[in-house]
């Protein structure tokens, strides 16, 4: 079920349900509550596996940097931002329940040194646009 509460306005969103947020000089990347709910259907234990990259990897915008798997299916994790992976939140791989609990802060996945300072203007949605996008995806 889609949460009715507004999603955080301090970051940008991709159509494949990742978020990117400026954090000092770097950008944090994670997945949205919608992505988590679609994978797990509101049930923590439905998430079984998450594979994150090593630091040092260069990512193009939209490039797959990992995979997340639920009882039902595997989904690619795509980077909304081009840049170099400088830190990885490996804790998630062992504690997938973090993603259900707090996808916005504790559930960040990778920290990226963005290739461009203007990454936020590149084809990404703000919270209100992402909300509308989710509405348009319902049939």
């Amino acid at each position, binding site marked *: 079920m889609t949460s009715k509460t507004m999603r955080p306005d301090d970051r940008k969103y991709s159509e494949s349900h990742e978020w990117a947020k400026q954090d000092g000089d770097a950008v944090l990347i994670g997945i949205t509550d919608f992505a988590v709910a679609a994978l797990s259907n509101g049930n923590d*234990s439905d998430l*079984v596996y998450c594979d994150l990259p090593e630091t040092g990897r260069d990512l193009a915008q939209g490039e797959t940097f990992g995979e997340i*798997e639920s*009882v039902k*299916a*595997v989904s690619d994790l795509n980077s909304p931002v081009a840049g170099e992976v400088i830190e990885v939140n490996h804790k998630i791989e062992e504690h997938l329940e973090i993603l259900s609990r707090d996808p916005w802060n504790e559930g960040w996945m990778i920290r990226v040194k963005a290739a461009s300072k203007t990454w936020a203007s590149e084809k990404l949605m703000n919270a209100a646009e992402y909300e509308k996008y989710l509405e348009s995806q319902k049939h």
Partner: protein
Amino acid sequence: MKLTALHDVHERLGAKLIDFGGWHMPVQYGPILDEVTTVRTKAGLFDLGHMGRVHVTGKDAVRYVDSIATNFCAKIPTSAIRYSLFCRADGNPIDDILLYKEEGGSVFIVVNASNTAADLAWMREHTKGFDVRVHDQTDELGMIAIQGQVSRDVLQKLVEGYDLGQLGYYKFTFATVCGIPNMRVSRTGYTGELGYELYVPQRETARVWNALSEAGKSHGVAPIGLGARDILRLEAGMPLYGHEIDATHNPIEAGLNFGVSFAPEKGDWIGRAALERIKANPTQRLIGLTTDGPRVPRQGTPVFRGAEQVGAVASGGVSPTINKNIASAFVKLGCDQPGLGLEIDFKGKRQACTVQELPFFSRTRK
């Protein structure tokens, strides 16, 4: 998308609905693995309204079925059911089916939702020379399954004048259920549990579902979606069209010999020659794999022995019953011994697995 007679019921129950074989069906009402456990420990209700139901009548019905289906219809006792397939001349299946042999020589056939149109076209294409009528009853009948150890006790409360204890595995009868006379009740299912399938007049389907739900409440009976159904059938080693069998996977190598008859008295049937050749010279076999690793095998995931790919996963999932990730997989002969260690390849990352015979779990298979 087509809707079953229970569509409103599912929406009221808050089910997540998906397109399945052209039907809008519940994939889950709650957590999938909890639904699996409910069926394994109590019982679950399934809406099977999407499955195709075809009645074959006429004096040549049995002979006709024997010419297009793999099992030996003439040998099926009256009121018994057998697993069978429709195969093309190359031996590869169009669908797998259940044959209900009726008194008087008519045959009731249950087919998969996704293949119903192809099955009907196939059946009608091959009626020439037979005195038969092929009647699609999919839209006139609803279908409900109750599966699990308490299913008999629950269903018995709604059945008048018949002791369900008399109904053997893969047998059917016509009984009065919820006051509805002559309802087809079969002791069949897709879970490896004690269970029954009911063929209900369409307009009565919701009433029967609600009655079963009410009668089962004190036993912990709950509705079960397609997600759990897939895990239950995989645990029970039962094939799913599009996975263990399809246009490129024949029933012999899938271990479904019990559904294929080469008895001379059956005469010729479509696919016979090809399947005889495959039987004489198979190259691969469907086996079970268990893995202690976190990754879930999925259809197509390659299976390796050392550097050599020796097979691929047909179906995979999380098994809450044996508490491991499991798969059915085709592996080449010589790599199919139970206990053999193989590796599943997830985009270059290997995870150890072990070969075993199917099923992983069943209360119905000896």
